[in-house]
């Protein structure tokens, strides 16, 4: 008997108490838990995202589409970056203001090549406010998983409000399971030494997240951005 057949036979014997006619769907699963924890305006959701990202030591920036290229250029310069990996589908204008040498994400790029690169700039698939998470799904504006792993500095751009959801259930609804995903909540960290949290073990030690609002945000949204609740006294 193959091991597959053996294990299957063991399972069926073990489940002798389960009526043969019972369908899996007959075992009740009550999904009475919340789809999201609280009602927020899109601006409040973006604020919560920023707050939770920062809480886990991501560096958060907020800007609009027009100012994005200059911001990215400034962030790369501040790191003294000499090279930046570019996913194949990254919007061309994002890097239009920087002179830093571009390294295209190609199949030939080895882990050693990537280790010599300063930074990487990507978009994202979705961001989760309640947990301070950005999700990458290897779409053309994000590239292969390895490019956001080996370089020590990752700049991740999130479109606000379109790419931001409140909760984990809302994020899963948007994601395609057939694509490889990386959920990122702050930079790499460990608590293995006396439970002291240390940022930066093997993944990028610096994660910078840029929340980009549409070029001409509605007036009330712009007002809200300048008076974030936790800053008001």
């Amino acid at each position: 008997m193959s091991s597959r057949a053996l294990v299957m036979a063991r399972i069926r014997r073990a489940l002798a108490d389960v009526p043969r006619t019972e369908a899996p769907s007959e075992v009740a699963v009550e999904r009475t838990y919340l789809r999201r924890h609280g009602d927020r305006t899109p601006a409040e959701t973006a604020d919560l995202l920023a707050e939770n990202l920062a809480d886990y030591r991501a560096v958060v920036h907020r800007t609009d589409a027009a100012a994005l290229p200059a911001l990215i250029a400034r962030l790369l310069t501040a790191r003294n970056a000499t090279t930046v990996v570019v996913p194949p589908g990254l919007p061309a204008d994002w890097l239009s203001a920087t002179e830093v040498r571009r390294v295209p994400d190609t199949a030939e790029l080895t882990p050693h090549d990537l280790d010599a690169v300063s930074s990487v700039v990507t978009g994202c698939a979705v961001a989760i406010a309640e947990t301070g998470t950005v999700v990458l799904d290897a779409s053309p504006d994000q590239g292969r998983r390895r490019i956001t792993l080996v370089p020590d500095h990752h700049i991740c751009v999130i479109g606000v409000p379109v790419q931001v959801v409140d909760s984990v259930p809302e994020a899963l609804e948007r994601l395609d399971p057939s694509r490889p995903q990386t959920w990122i909540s702050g930079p790499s960290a460990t608590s293995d030494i006396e439970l002291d949290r240390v940022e930066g073990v093997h993944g990028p030690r610096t994660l910078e997240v840029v929340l980009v609002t549409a070029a001409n945000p509605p007036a009330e949204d712009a007002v809200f951005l300048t008076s974030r609740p936790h800053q008001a006294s």
Partner: protein
Amino acid sequence: MPAFPKAADTSTHNTQLRANLRHATHTIRAKRATAVAELDDWGRLRAAGAAIKDRTLRHLDHYLEQLERAVTAAGGQVHWAADADEANRIVTELVRATGEREVVKVKSMATQEIGLNHALAEAGITAYETDLAELIVQLGDDLPSHILVPAIHRNRAEIRDIFTAKMARWGRPAPDGLTDAPADLAEAARLHLREKFLNAKVGVSGANFMVAETGTLVVVESEGNGRMCLTLPDTLISVVGIEKVVPTFQDLEVFLQLLPRSSTAERMNPYTSTWTGTTDDDGPRAFHLVLLDNGRTDALADTVGRQALRCIRCSACLNVCPVYERAGGHAYGSAYPGPIGAILTPQLRGTQSELDASLPYASSLCGACYEVCPVAIDIPEVLLHLRERVVEGGPASVRGTRAVIKPAKGHAAERAAMRAASWALDHPRVLRSGQRLASRTRRFHPRRLPGPGRAWSDSRELPTVPAESFRDWWQRTRTTTTPRHGDDRNTP
């Protein structure tokens, strides 16, 4: 392996270990309570988590077949291992077929359970552990003592000494003048492991979840060593217990909320990777999934013990357990320490050995483990059930075959069991602190569980401990136990 009480006594007399453990468990316990309190619907998430697992377990054959089809369709290859030896053989052959002699490993309970590193070493293949704590354990030629933080029994000075003395033998040496600052130690590990990651051709992992519907595997981690092992090598081999399957991708919405908060007390862990088979030009070109039984079907056959297979290995039960805190993880003699180990190990391995027979007694039955468990495993209920099996024997599944276990009366197993009970009862602080905890965490109870879980959750407030019968048993056997360990009463 010595039976639980003997091993526990060795570690309770090691004050360094006890201080490290106490600090760690108390810290994480408090943080966890805060992270859980952030979610108003924790109880409902917990009930849903338990129900999803129950659905899966009651129809495990169905979901495994579905999983196998989906993984295969996505370009992966599925292997079945009835026991540890077979799993080790499969992995060894897969590694050999690549022509490589080294693998990088993501922390995985399943591979520890089967002793994979040892089996690979016998075949001339070196397995490098890449999780920081596992690295500390491996370099220190030590054993893990906690599910989540396996080197929790080591403090920073000990870790510095291990790195300084041992790193050179495994690869890049520790930097000169390494201090014991956690950031410096993490940096030393980063440098030491980076060359391994960049050159790795074969990665070995476990998985936290496997999605039957889509064939997706999920690994939850913090450091990025998981991402390295899952994405850089050409070949990825994942060894996963058959109980880790969940029906749908949507089900992850429950577990990705329960696990990080319950485990590391975070809203979300730094990195979660999901992959479905293979993807062109992104990640490994070959993906092998080794589905592991190794006693799980025996646990499945036990309608009381089955619930242990819901476990998502968050380690919350360890951190609240007064017995674990005193005894340390090594005393449990398996990859699974603490309350979950006390009910899982005797089911996976049977209750025939002294150690395994003593494990169900390594508890004060305070119920704190049940209170914190994110999938509502009634650990005290299973402990009592297994005690009964040890003492009275009865029908059980052994390696997939129905058998009748003989009562352990008069056997070494029963004596070991009694000594474990004596150990737990002779540590009054163990009992007291456990009871305090239980009342503090009562609010995390789900009111009731839907579906088949309902029967046992309906009438339950705290887990009911049949104190009479236990005391009877205690009185009856007391006279033959080894001397009391009274010297421990005064230790804080």
